[in-house]
């Protein structure tokens, strides 16, 4: 009974949030003088209208799913890792440089690029975890600040030492990687690539990891009640550094997947402008850090974004409607966390031990 109730509640609240988001979006559409139904129809078409748009949505969802999974892991353990953006950018840069400069056949380049991205981004993220467990520096703030340092550093690397000077382009970017090291596309002529498969496999894998492994168990308990976990013998500092490493590593993988599967080089600002990392964090918040849920939430956010682009092509309503809808979704989710908080308080009061 309880389980069914929990599942239903877990489903109802995101749905309510989506409805609220669409309602507020409708108000915004009316404000700019658009036709609500027409606009939403175009939005739907832009996201899922035909096979090209559908796969395009999936391609955009790929980095969002990956980042979301990384963040979900940290959130599950109760650590506010807000550094996905920097971790992703460093991962992308490392992947691009490795693929460019490691000799060998394409497959080796590809694997080396992925491993480099995972290690660099993981260490960068674990560094923040170490600062917290060693010096008591607030993880939320350090990860936020480290974002800026990471993106600036990556920008420097491609503006100076590793700048592509072969073409006439003045852009800060690396050279293009070897075609043999690129992720294969899943369908001829479509943008969706191997990274999407990796993301889905990882989502399933993380779901199983959380549910069925002892480390996953320790992470869940640490996030639920850190005192209980400590009492049971879980070492918080160690767990923090490990889970921050993995969390950052997955964000780094997201960066690698963008480089190897879509952009084929590291272009300064391209990942931050697309807002992949923050969308990933939003997806995690929407799904309350559930891996499978995060993947679905990432798809939803991606669809809102690609749908927004489609809508903008065919109506006068600006693309930014999407960001309004996304923001309202998140606001509703913070309210959802409140509801579970109130529930918990009631459950505590039921005990009735007065004194």
């Amino acid at each position, binding site marked *: 009974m309880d389980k069914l109730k929990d599942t239903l509640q877990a489903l109802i609240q995101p749905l309510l949030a989506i409805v609220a988001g669409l309602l507020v979006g409708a108000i915004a559409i009316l404000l700019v003088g658009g036709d609500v139904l027409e606009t939403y129809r175009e939005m739907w078409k832009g996201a899922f209208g035909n096979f090209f748009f559908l796969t395009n949505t999936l391609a955009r969802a790929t980095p969002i799913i990956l980042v979301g999974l990384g963040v979900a892991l940290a959130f599950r353990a109760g650590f506010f890792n807000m550094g996905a953006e920097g971790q992703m950018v460093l991962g992308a840069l490392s992947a691009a440089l490795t693929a460019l400069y490691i000799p060998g056949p394409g497959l080796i380049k590809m694997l080396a690029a992925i491993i480099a991205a995972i290690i660099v981004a993981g260490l960068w993220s674990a560094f923040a975890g170490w600062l917290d467990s060693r010096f008591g520096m607030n993880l939320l703030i350090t990860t936020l600040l480290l974002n800026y340092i990471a993106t600036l550093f990556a920008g420097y690397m491609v503006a100076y030492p590793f700048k592509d000077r072969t073409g006439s382009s003045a852009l800060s970017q690396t050279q293009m990687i070897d075609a043999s090291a690129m992720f294969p596309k899943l369908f001829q002529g479509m943008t969706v690539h191997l990274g999407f498969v990796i993301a889905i496999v990882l989502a399933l894998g993380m779901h199983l990891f959380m549910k069925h492994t002892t480390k996953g168990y320790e992470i869940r308990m640490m996030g639920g009640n850190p005192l209980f976990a400590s009492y049971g013998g879980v070492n918080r500092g160690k767990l923090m550094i490990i889970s921050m490493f993995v969390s950052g590593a997955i964000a780094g993988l997201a960066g690698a997947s963008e480089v190897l599967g879509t952009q084929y080089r590291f272009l300064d600002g391209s990942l931050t402008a697309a807002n992949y990392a923050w969308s990933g964090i939003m997806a995690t918040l929407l799904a309350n850090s559930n891996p499978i849920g995060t993947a679905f939430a990432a798809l939803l956010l991606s669809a809102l974004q690609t749908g927004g682009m489609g809508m903008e092509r065919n109506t006068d309503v600006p693309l*930014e409607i999407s960001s309004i809808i996304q923001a309202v979704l998140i606001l509703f989710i913070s309210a959802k966390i409140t509801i579970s908080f109130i529930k918990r308080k009631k459950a505590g009061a039921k005990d009735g031990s007065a004194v």
Partner: protein
Amino acid sequence: MDQLFDVSLFAAALRMVAPILLAALGGAICARVGLFNVGLEGMILVGAFSAILGNYLTGSITMAVLFSVVCTLVFSLLFAYMSINLQANVIVVGIALNFLATGLTTFSLRAIFDVKGAYYDKDMKGLPKLDIPVLKDIPWLGDVLSGQSILVYAAIIIVIVLQIYLYKTVAGFRLLAAGENPIAARSLGLHVKKTQYVAVLICGALCGLAGAQLSLGNVTMFTEGMTNGRGFIALVATMLGQSNPIGVAGASLLFGFMEALSYRLQNFSIPSNITAMLPFVVTIIAMIFFKNSGYKDEAKKSSGSSR
């Protein structure tokens, strides 16, 4: 090095301190009543946009600043309602508001000005620069302190006003009490929730001013995400300054100076990417001196004990 540390560097520093300082003061007031406001970044962004919008709509600088304050007040009410009445996790609410601010400003930029990324109108007037009579004639000091935008002086005055409010008035004393020990404050019949609302609204107004200085202070323009981490730096300034106005001013001065220095260093053929890291690196180093309260205490506070 003479060229590096010249008059205009310090003048620029003062200009760049203002938004950080104003927001950090807001953060300090919130921290004083027990609310850790991660939403500063979003509040400044709303302030920056609505200042430009107010200017565009009315053509009056006074109205623009007023409009920015009002908009940010409304926005901060959302933060207050969700964290005080609904008792939602303050950090999640702060993050959510940052998202909302980004969404609202990019949408409005598009919907109202029909531009993407940035809005700039060369005919739009910025905040007036004040020449302080006697002061401006003092050689070095005059060049640094005089001729700044009106909000820079306002920020300095607000530091003093807040210092007096918190440490000299009865209302400020009770605000401190509500944050220091809410249970004790309630047992004395003080209204803790009302006090928290007041604090969040003060914070909102200050972030409105911070935003106005950002978009109208030097160049009159708005760009998407133009706060660029200043809200988070302000948050660290709040922590370093121990939520004490004078202390917060000191910390903000440090960060503002680093920002000015980072721009200045670009003239010395150091790549801008490297110089722009300076404020963030210094901020992180500064954090070593501020210790988090242990996670055990945090957990004990939030967990409902059976006793």
